[in-house]
């Protein structure tokens, strides 16, 4: 069972790395923001699997915090982009 779980963990890690390629490519800032959703699902699954296979219960707490922080990072991003968009529509150019 541990072997299977470790394999699952490796697959999830690889998918996370492949997903980061989309963040690298962009092209829109919103595409890059999908990273937070990717970590909130794939990252949480990875941590939960590792918590079992490595017998590290603390990793479950890390998963919990990761899921909660993902929303906060999205909120921060959205607030900033909305401010920039509003400034643009008023004709003020601001460096992003």
């Amino acid at each position, binding site marked *: 069972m541990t072997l299977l779980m470790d394999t699952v963990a490796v*697959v999830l890690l690889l998918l996370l790395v492949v997903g980061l390629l989309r963040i690298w490519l962009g092209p829109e800032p919103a595409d890059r923001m999908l990273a937070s959703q*990717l970590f909130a699902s794939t990252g949480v699954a990875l941590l939960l699997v590792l918590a079992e296979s490595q017998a590290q219960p603390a990793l479950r707490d890390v998963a919990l915090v990761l899921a909660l922080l993902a929303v906060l990072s999205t909120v921060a991003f*959205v607030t900033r982009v909305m401010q920039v968009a509003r400034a643009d529509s008023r004709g003020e150019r601001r460096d992003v």
Partner: protein
Amino acid sequence: MSDSLIMLLQALLLVIGCLFFLVGTLGLFRLPDTLTRIHALTKADNLGLGFVVLGLLPSVPGPATAAKILLIWLIALAASATAAHLVARTVRATDASRDREERA
């Protein structure tokens, strides 16, 4: 006998979970724009997480831990739905301001 049956079921659930994660990541590359990518990521990945959590349930130490990982899944669901909505709204707003600029 029933132990090995449970292990088989667990393995099946974990593999199904991985397949859904694979679909979600595939969606990030096959789909043409941000909004459709959000569709794929939100739906497929959360289902993948759900299957992985179900697959882990039989090996956790006790019922409290089982409740905890189910809770983590629920939080991830809520987080994902909220994040999807917020990013989609931002994409819509920036598209609208870009349209205005082009018309001006």
